[in-house]
């Protein structure tokens, strides 16, 4: 066998394994640290595996965080509202930008894209002022109502997908007797399931992991989300309990991980078909 020909795939395999190990390293460290006693967490040289797994770190961490299940419920509620709001509103707006012809459509889409360039910290203060004027500070509203107003990224993603659906499907539906909304609901949306699931997953992850939003808009502890609740484990008087922090972080990460593995085929197909890299 030609050594040059066989060494190329072998090399790629090695490179990919190394890259994979590199990406998995933080997760491995997190889980490993979550099972260590505190005195093993910051040892030098680093101790890769716990001497004996401390499974009680997990219930201890949940206790140390405060009302863990309340935070989890809040995170889940916000994630649900955001996913529903984002998917529906982004799909509706993306439909308007892709399947309907109207004057100024492309200019409006360009303006929408431009808003994607604005980082959140830039608009954070004026948005805070807006919600304060509405009397929404200290409520959940600022964290889910905007999801029903269609964010630029998701609109862009879905628009690209909708553009790939042949126009004569809409025309056939129009002749069959569909109204424009029915074409959207019964023809376009069912065909867009991979893209919609991608939007839902992205939004779920963004809401689940969102720290800044809950930090600035929520007032009372019983409203906190898991991301915010993790903060309770940081910087206490006696120093950071890394083993508890890592255990809590692993718990917070778990739902997203499980969801991804359950839906990864559709998720990847959604990214591929929307042309996202």
């Amino acid at each position, binding site marked *: 066998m030609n050594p040059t020909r066989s060494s190329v795939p072998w090399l790629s395999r090695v490179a990919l394994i190394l890259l994979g190990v590199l990406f998995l390293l933080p997760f491995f460290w997190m889980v490993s640290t979550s099972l260590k006693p505190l005195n093993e967490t910051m040892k030098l040289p680093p101790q890769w595996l716990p001497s004996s797994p401390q499974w009680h770190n997990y219930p201890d961490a949940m206790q140390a965080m405060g009302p863990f299940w309340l935070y989890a419920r809040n995170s889940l509620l916000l994630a649900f509202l955001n996913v529903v709001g984002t998917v529906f509103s982004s799909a509706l707006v993306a439909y308007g930008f892709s399947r309907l012809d109207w004057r100024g459509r492309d200019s409006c889409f360009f303006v929408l894209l431009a808003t994607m360039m604005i980082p959140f910290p830039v608009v954070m203060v004026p948005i805070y002022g807006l919600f304060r004027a509405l009397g929404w500070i200290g409520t959940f509203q600022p964290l889910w109502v905007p999801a029903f107003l269609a964010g630029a990224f998701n609109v862009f993603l879905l628009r690209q997908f909708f553009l790939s659906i042949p126009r*004569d*499907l809409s025309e*056939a539906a129009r*002749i069959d007797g*569909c109204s424009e909304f029915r074409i959207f609901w019964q023809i376009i949306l069912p065909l867009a399931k991979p893209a919609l699931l991608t939007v839902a997953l992205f939004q779920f992850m963004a809401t689940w992991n969102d720290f800044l939003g809950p930090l600035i808009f929520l007032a009372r502890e019983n409203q906190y989300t898991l991301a915010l609740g993790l903060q309770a484990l940081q910087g206490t008087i006696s120093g950071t309990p890394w083993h508890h922090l890592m255990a809590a972080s692993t718990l917070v990460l778990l739902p997203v991980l499980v969801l991804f593995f359950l839906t990864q085929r559709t998720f990847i197909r959604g990214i591929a078909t929307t042309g996202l890299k």
Partner: protein
Amino acid sequence: MAKVLIENLYKIYPAEKGRPEKVAVDNANFEIQDREFMVLVGPSGCGKTTTLRMVAGLEEISRGAIYIDGKKINEIPPKDRDIAMVFQNYALYPHMSVYRNMAFGLELRGVPKEEIRRRVDSAARTLGLLEPDNLLERKPKALSGGQRQRVALGRAIVREPKAFLFDEPLSNLDAKMRVETRTEISRLHRQLASTMIYVTHDQTEAMTMADRIVVMRYGKIQQIAAPLDLYHQPANLFVAGFIGSPPMNFFTGTLNASRQGTLEFVEKVPAGQTPFRCPLFPDTSRRLSYRQDREVILGLRPEHLHPNSLTSGVTLEATVEVVEPMGAETFVYLRTEGHTCICRTTQSEFIDLEGKKLNLGPDLSRAVFFDPETEEAIPT
């Protein structure tokens, strides 16, 4: 009853930056009789699909009117025009079964379930979607191109519309399936006795399927006639060259007085070359006497150029370039001095004659004359 009247119809796309105003359909006027199979044919961009889409309600009408059974339908939405359309790419709903694809339009109209079942089963049986395999529960992706097109036909049939509209339905099929489906559509037309408007760029489809044909070019209607009338009496140079395959041969020349006192066609050739000459029949000569010494274009169909024929006493000498044996007939592509022409014959001895010289005898009784400036046919 389903007469369709197109009256002074225009489709104008307004000027945009970088693009001037475009007139896609320019003053179209014709009437489709009840139960007629009307074909709109022409090259790409001639306005045939735009006209069909205006009838369907998928394009706005810029000017003019369309009437179905005497009722003006300009402002009526597609679903209320009582038409059904078959698309080039089938346009089947990928997430619905064949049954649901066919039933969808009826469901939206509130037709009772039993009636839907009856119509779908009947159409499916007619189109061979039940035997040998029952395709009703399959999704479109599990069907072949021909099967998908039959489902698209079925979707139109169950609607029992006033008029069927076809937008190049055979373009995506392979040659064999195209011939089969073409026959299927013609059979359906006889069976359903419905008005059908069919758009195609393929003149063979037009000739074989139509009761009448509308030939279009650059948005304008060139001629409306029955297939054989179009074939034998084309109204202008474009129709003559478009209809018929292989296309008509054209010779440019003048009508000069011959020694016999009749007119003679003399081909216009560069200096030093021998022109092709042929005398006109006395009747034709008399009728065209007013065009003496003026330029004309002589059109002769390939089957009216007979190889090695001495019947008319007139021959055109040409060199064989390519011979295409089609089985039942042979197409011979020839070159005269600076001019190419095609002859079509059922004689089979022309294979292996590439490079050899042939004498072609024109059948002038079938010749068509055109004015070179207006490109219109000259009546004879």
